[in-house]
């Protein structure tokens, strides 16, 4: 039963992966990575029951904590990049104008 669930999750991970590869916008990728993180957490928990090594729930916990940090970081840097592009555009405008 665990194996069946694991396979279903793997299939879901595969589809998410395709979305992460295809984009098209940065936000699609972030969404896909975030969702991939969630499925990994589930996958790790399921596999830990499958192998009867229940220590691994610790790893699932770490993932749940840290993949969130990763997502926020990505969002922050998307914003920074956005502002940077705006600034570059402004610089160019200024060079054209005078």
């Amino acid at each position, binding site marked *: 039963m665990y194996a069946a669930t694991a396979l279903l999750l793997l299939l879901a*991970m595969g589809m998410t992966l395709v979305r992460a590869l295809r984009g098209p916008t940065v936000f699609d990728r972030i969404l*896909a990575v975030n*969702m991939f993180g969630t499925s990994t957490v589930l996958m790790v*928990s399921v596999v830990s*029951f499958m192998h009867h090594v229940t220590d691994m729930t610790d790893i699932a916990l770490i993932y749940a904590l840290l993949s969130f940090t990763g*997502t926020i970081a990505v969002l922050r840097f998307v914003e920074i990049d956005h502002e940077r592009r*705006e600034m570059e555009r402004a610089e160019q405008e200024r060079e054209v104008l005078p």
Partner: protein
Amino acid sequence: MSLLLDVLSWVLLLSGGLLSIVSAFGVLRLPELFQRMHSATILDTLGAGLVLSGLILQAGFTVISFKLFLVFLLLALTTTTAAHALAKSALADGIYPKGIDPEVVRAGLSEGLPGRQRIATDRARERVAPPASPQEDPPPQPSEEGGPPWA
């Protein structure tokens, strides 16, 4: 009793797995970002909840169950918050849901917020070009309240 629990947990696990497929399929096939986000939340909350509660039933009343519950709690908190931030960033970046007038979204975005917390682009524009410029033929200025022309 134990058989009942087993069957119940299997049902939960499998339905969780199936939901994850549905959710991933949506993320893969739906046409635009906000619809995909909607689909992704299915896994983030319901799918994760089902799978984890299936596992909790298997583990019984142990530390493992507590940890799994923590995982669920964290996922429920973080994924939703992340989704909120993601949507907000996407809107600020100029990506709008289909079939909705951008003007409406923009008005909604900048209306509800105090001046200091307006969205990224407004601020970036202001920062670059300070408002009061007494020049002839100034560059297209964003007006304070109405929002800048989106490039």
